[in-house]
């Protein structure tokens, strides 16, 4: 446990030395991360398979690939990001100049999550390093193979005086949260998010909370059956593809019109079979449930007899291999847990509506989700979704790809969290934008100083209004 205090003290000392401020240092660390991935790809695949049964293709698409892209982007933009930005200054202070300089916040604490144990740890780390901070990373103990991989490998490649990995469970987290940090970046559940923020308040530490929520997917009807099929493929890929539904931006439930339900279910079944075969358990293409605890949680969601009765596909659970089949439910009761709690697993409830326009109201009567997906060609519906609902992000006609755009901010709103990252947004999240003003000694305007007179008041009024002509008249004594 001393590890916490010692590591923090060393990270703080390194920060104070100023070496992490140099762009060269930052780039060196980012390149070292590249090397780490390059040299250890097989080990990473192995760790992800051990923890979650992720197939290497899925692991590459959702984890390694994401990190490589992020590294590439940071490395090619970092010089631009660190450059001071000029600001214009009002005339009263002419010829002063203003600029904004991003400076590192200090020592950052990153809590990552078990469902994408690699990318959710390294992606924020890239941002924190790019901004010149020192970092303590606490990977989730629920993905132990990845956690120990990170703890053992990162020190071999990165500056171990500045970037540290601390492993551990709840007790370690508590200990970490007692310390003072300059920012805490947390990915996980709302319940723990509250604990993190409460602890942060004691030290006035700003936090980024990347939480989850029930991400709805609106499925409109299509005149072209080919489009409908592509939509279903993307839904299946987006629901069971990334970590078998254990993803914060994964699809939680589907909203469709009643008349579409049966066609939809048929097509879903067909595509599930094509993707995962007759027996999905044997397919290496679906991840397993992370652990017994989550397995039990998911099993409980189906316990309600009304919910169990709504299963139209799948529903088999194998506790020994922690595998749950892709499962579809049609209209489970809205007050049941499966429709009030974030599912975070391979269950897909379909909620039928009379008219797809009702989906707006349906979504608005629930907490704001991290993402809304909508498959539609109806431009009016698109506009309504953007302007009448609120969510971290909205993606039309696809699933989860918003996560892959470095130019888009990624983050939640309301119950799905606050703060954002990815690309430049990561850099900003881990930087303090310091406002700098440089005054000069000439000219020295008397009107700024007491004793106050009516003349000075007039002068200031004009200066604020940028009334150059009025100012000249006043100075010449021609204006009253």
């Amino acid at each position, binding site marked *: 446990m001393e590890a916490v205090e010692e590591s923090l003290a060393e990270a703080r000392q390194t920060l104070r030395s100023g070496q992490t*401020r140099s762009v060269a240092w930052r780039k060196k660390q980012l390149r070292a991360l590249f090397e780490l991935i390059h040299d250890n790809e097989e080990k990473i695949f192995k760790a992800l398979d051990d923890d979650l049964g992720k197939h290497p*293709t899925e692991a*590459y*698409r959702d984890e390694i*690939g994401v990190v*490589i*892209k992020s590294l*590439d982007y940071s490395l090619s933009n970092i010089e631009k990001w660190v450059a001071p930005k000029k*600001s214009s*200054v*009002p005339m*009263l*202070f002419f010829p002063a100049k*203003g600029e*904004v300089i991003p*400076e590192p916040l*200090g020592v950052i604490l990153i809590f990552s999550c078990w469902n994408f144990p690699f990318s959710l740890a390294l992606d924020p780390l890239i941002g924190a390093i790019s901004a010149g901070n020192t970092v303590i990373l606490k990977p989730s103990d629920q993905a132990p193979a990845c956690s120990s991989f990170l703890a053992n490998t990162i020190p071999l490649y990165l500056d171990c005086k500045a970037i540290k990995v601390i492993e551990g469970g709840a007790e370690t987290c508590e200990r970490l949260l007692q310390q003072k940090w300059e920012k805490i970046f947390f990915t996980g559940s709302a319940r723990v998010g*509250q604990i993190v*923020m*409460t602890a*942060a*308040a004691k030290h*006035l530490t*700003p936090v980024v909370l990347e*939480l989850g929520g029930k991400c709805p997917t609106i499925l409109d009807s299509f005149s072209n059956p080919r*489009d409908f099929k*592509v939509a279903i*493929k993307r839904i*299946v890929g987006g629901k069971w*593809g990334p970590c078998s539904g254990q993803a914060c931006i994964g699809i939680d439930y589907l909203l469709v019109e009643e008349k579409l339900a049966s066609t939809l279910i048929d097509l879903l079944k067909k595509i599930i079979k094509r*993707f*995962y075969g007759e027996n999905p358990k044997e397919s290496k*293409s*679906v991840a397993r449930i992370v652990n017994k605890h989550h397995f039990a949680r998911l099993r409980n969601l189906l316990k309600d007899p009304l919910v169990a009765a709504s299963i139209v596909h799948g529903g088999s659970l194998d506790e020994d291999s922690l595998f749950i089949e892709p499962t579809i439910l049609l209209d489970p009761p809205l007050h049941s847990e499966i429709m009030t709690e974030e599912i975070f697993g391979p269950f897909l409830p379909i909620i039928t509506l009379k008219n797809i326009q009702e989906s707006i109201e349906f979504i*608005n009567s629930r907490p704001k989700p991290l993402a809304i997906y909508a498959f539609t060609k109806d431009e009016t519906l*698109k506009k309504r979704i953007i302007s009448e609902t*609120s969510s*971290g992000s909205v993606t*039309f006609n*696809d699933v989860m*790809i*918003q996560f892959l*755009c470095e130019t*888009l*901010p990624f983050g939640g*709103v*309301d*119950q799905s969290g606050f*703060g954002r990252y990815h690309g430049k947004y990561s850099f900003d999240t881990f930087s303090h934008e310091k*406002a700098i*003003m*440089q*005054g*000069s*000694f000439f000219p*020295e305007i008397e009107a700024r100083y*007491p*004793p*106050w007179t009516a003349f000075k008041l007039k002068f200031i009024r004009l200066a*604020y209004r940028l009334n150059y002509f009025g100012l000249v008249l006043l100075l010449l004594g021609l204006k009253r």
Partner: protein
Amino acid sequence: MGSEEANAFDAKDAPKIAGELRESFASGKTRSYEWRTSQLKTILKILDNHEQDMILALRSDLSKPEMESYIQEIAMLKNSCKATLKSLKGWMVPEKAKTSMTTFPSSAEIVSEPLGVILIISAWNYPFYLSIDPVIGAIAAGNAVVLKPSEVSPASSALLAKLLKEYMDTSCVRVVEGAVAETAALLQQKWDKICYTGNGRVGRIVMEAAAKHLTPVLLELGGKSPVVVDSDVNLKFATHAVTFYVKVATRRIIAGKWGCNNGQACISPDYIITTKDFAPKLVDSLKEVLEKFYGKNPLESKDLSRIVNSNHFARLMKLLDEEKVSGKVVHGGERNETDLKIAPTILLDVPRDSLIMTEEIFGPLLPIITVEKVEESYDIINSGPKPLAAYLFTSNEKLKKQFVMTISAGGVVVNDTTIHLAVVTLPFGGVGESGMGAYHGKFSFEAFSHKKAVVYRSFVADAAVRYPPYTKGKLSLLKALVGGSILGIIRALFGWS
């Protein structure tokens, strides 16, 4: 205390108020550009029509000189409001974002959407500016707002409540008056953002309360903002130029310290660091200019604010009368407890472990710390919590650069004090103990907006590589796609690698 208690809302009504505003927000009316601009124009109208009322309220709460009230509150607000009205349309336009090859073909944009219902808890020292400026930002971003002005400046609080009720759309913009109990009741409600201006102790309470609802916070706190005065000017300047340098520095320090609500401002200079040999020159100059500005008997000057109340007066006296400090007064020290007046007071070489050097002063006392070399100031500043502002007077370019890089503060001003507050193109906010989040101008709009990422995809180009069953070939193609190598992609597509 009687009057503000009479105006205070009933704490039991807090859920009702929050509920009403949430309903108004849900109706969508605050989202339109027209609603936002009409409310902002109404604020301008209030400022135009009630300038004198505000000046009188500020005189009653703080004896604030008219000029200060006008420049630092009313003119700043008008400026902020006008700048916002001028740029708002542009700010509201969704920002196009580039998409990557992996998601081709697609387009993306970032939409600024209102957060919802904002709670603004403001401070007593600039009761109008610190209340209305965040309200401008919250309205500009399309939110509903509840404003709780400080009960410590009751006349201003009452005037705000009256004017906003009379002019603004009260279904979406509400002022509630009250003290601790009322604030606590407000903090129990769920808001979509809380903006608090004040001290770190209450800042912590606000953030902890916000954590229960996962509400983001903007905390504008204070801290001990240092002024470093370099003495190394003799080398560059002729004698008369040195005199000019000292005079300008002195005036700008005085304007930022005593000319800002008699030091009761979060960005006011808190203490000076200068070299041992330069200190006497600086003290002499300060004395001379202070007399020119505020006369021989500053307690009588109409150009200085008074201390806000007897609590703060007592707090300041405690700082001044500490045993190891009281002997260090080199100028001023006069006080009048009945009028709550304290004269501009300068202290030389106070011990670093004294109260006056460990707590935020927030009043007309200005200690000067002397060092051998000006660079020693870095350690002194960095050994304490990060201040809201740091000021440097120098003509040495190297020192400027060093100072800007070494000192962490909300804002840094070289060769002047406090003026960065007036620049709407600069973010205003603290770091560390001086707060989190920034506002002013476009930064206000952003502080009260959620940046929603929106991606549009079409149905063409659906690469099988994304979907299971997963194969080795798909893995290679993905690697090539991520790497962005066209050749690699072609090779993978043909199954050559």
